[in-house]
């Protein structure tokens, strides 16, 4: 749960992040931008997992789909229109969520986990096997989309600093938007579904519709993250739909603390930075090639010891102290 301190801390974080490009190197600016993209991705999944109680292992489907829409919609060597391509990507994700939602949301629990994974694998094979998406070689996005009104360019996304601030702005907007949604009637109903769906239905809520709406919103926001990721990276291939991506983002949500939006952001930061550190060959030498081993062990430890995630560390710590104090 959020304390009074949280909004202040978050504001400080945003200010620090905004100031970073003035002092940091290009590599790190792009890295933090990547982290912020993943933070949006993680928040979108947290809406589904942490607040609606639906554990999806197939969220990469939306992330990758949006990237591919941009790659397909962008002209070969000219810059695409950001407004139209982004709208197209988001609509594609919403439609995919709507269609698959009707099939997957009739289930729950472990079955839901399996069927969401299966659908994202299906999409993986669509882009991997068919010529539609350039096959396993993927597709390039040679020019960053333009953000124009009429003939005036609003932002030059070719500039990596501008792209960084653009991403920071979007991440902040998504955070504030989700905060508001979770505070609304709709959000309270979602939390009710996670807590006791059976009772909520008995009270008169058509929970299927709420779950479908949550799934669509979550998928669309994941698509937003995927769009910017493709924009930043300039390249899409079927690997962005892989279940490793789905597993990683789920890991970020749990690591940070489910049911806590800033936890999802924190989880994304820690996970990506950890990944960067572990795979850094200049620090760890040749064993850095096998960084997934350390990452796997880390994931196992988190699963065993940190049910509340990082944001819950404070309360877990306090509880342990209380317990020992009581017996003292």
């Amino acid at each position, binding site marked *: 749960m959020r304390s009074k301190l949280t909004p202040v801390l978050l504001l400080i974080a945003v200010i620090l992040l905004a100031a970073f490009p003035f002092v940091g190197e290009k590599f790190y600016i792009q890295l933090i931008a990547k982290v912020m993209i993943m933070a949006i991705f993680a928040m979108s999944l947290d809406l589904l997992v942490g607040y609606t109680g639906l554990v999806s292992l197939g969220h990469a489907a939306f992330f990758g789909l949006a990237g591919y829409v941009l790659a397909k919609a962008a002209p070969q060597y000219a810059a695409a229109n950001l407004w139209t391509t982004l709208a197209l990507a988001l609509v594609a994700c919403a439609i995919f969520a709507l269609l698959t939602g009707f099939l997957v949301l009739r289930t729950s629990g472990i079955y839901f986990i399996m069927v969401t994974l299966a659908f994202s694998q299906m999409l993986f094979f669509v882009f991997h096997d068919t010529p539609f998406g350039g096959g396993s070689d993927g597709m390039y996005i040679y020019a960053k989309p333009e953000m124009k009104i009429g003939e005036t360019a609003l932002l030059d996304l070719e500039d990596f600093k501008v792209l960084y601030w653009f991403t920071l702005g979007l991440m902040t907007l998504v955070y504030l938007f989700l905060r508001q949604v979770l505070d609304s009637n709709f959000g309270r109903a979602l939390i009710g579904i996670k807590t006791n769906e059976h009772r909520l239905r008995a009270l008169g809520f058509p929970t299927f519709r709420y779950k479908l709406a949550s799934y669509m919103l979550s998928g669309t926001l994941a698509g937003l993250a995927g769009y910017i990721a493709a924009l930043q990276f300039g390249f899409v291939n079927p690997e962005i739909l892989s279940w490793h991506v789905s597993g990683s983002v789920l890991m970020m949500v749990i690591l940070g603390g489910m049911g806590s939006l800033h936890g999802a952001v924190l989880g994304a930061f820690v996970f990506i930075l950890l990944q960067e550190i572990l795979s850094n060959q200049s620090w760890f030498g040749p064993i850095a090639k096998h960084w997934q*081993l350390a990452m796997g062990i880390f994931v*196992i430890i988190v*699963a065993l010891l940190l049910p509340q995630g990082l944001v819950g560390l404070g309360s877990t710590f306090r509880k342990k102290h209380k317990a020992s104090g009581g017996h003292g």
Partner: protein
Amino acid sequence: MDFAFVLIQLLNGLQYGLLLFLVASGLTLVFGIMGIVNLAHGSFYMIGAYLAWSLAGMLDSFAAAVLLGVPLTVILGMGLERLLFQYLYHRDHLYQVLLTYGLILVFEELRSVLWGDDVHGVAVPALLSGSIPLTDTLSYPIYRLVISGFCLLLAGALYGLIQKTRLGMMIRAGSSNREMVQALGINIKMLYTLVFALGVALAAFGGMIAAPVSSVYPNMGAQVLIICFVVVVIGGIGSVWGALLASILIGMTDTFGKVLLPEYAGMSTYLLMVLVLLWRPEGLFKRG
């Protein structure tokens, strides 16, 4: 496309389906009885396959490799159950998913360290390397028939174990009422370890006998795991008959898909899944 060709594809589809059923049975057994979703189930399949390759090379005998490899993998599985899994029995499925996802990463990386990233073939044991002639020009490998035979045999043995023995009775009781079983003095911890060992053995054995036909390669564990998931989705959670039917359907769809529409072969299984879900949202059979 003549009769012999179709027959070959049917036999291939059957073999693939039965193998899937064997591996998927291990997964649903552990899930149905212990309530554990084990994503690393595919990793045990992979470990079995790689052990088949390396042990067969060292011992110069495929049979010896299987006889040694399965118990080795089972011991590994039981060790993991005692060390890690037992702490998750009462936790949300989410944490099991996470923990076993971490295990997948660990196993894949260990495989890379120990055995490298190349694709390796495993020789069919000499005794079973012949073929049965079907026409003047076409014949069918005996080994593939042996795989199908073994899978059917094991499935039958599994059925007999669960339905007809005391152990099977305890297993079935333990799945519906854990406390009662404990109150009756049955060691539920031992029971769970046994069931888990059984699940691992099925996966490892599946990987081993499949190795001569499918080779050993990185990511093979994840691949089979995801298809096992599709088996459960199509067949319905908790239904063994559903898993059998789903496995055969997937085996046929995949095999004929590769032959008729090679460009869309990877998707054929998922298209089947979509069709089934449109008709039956919870799979073909639900646990009553």
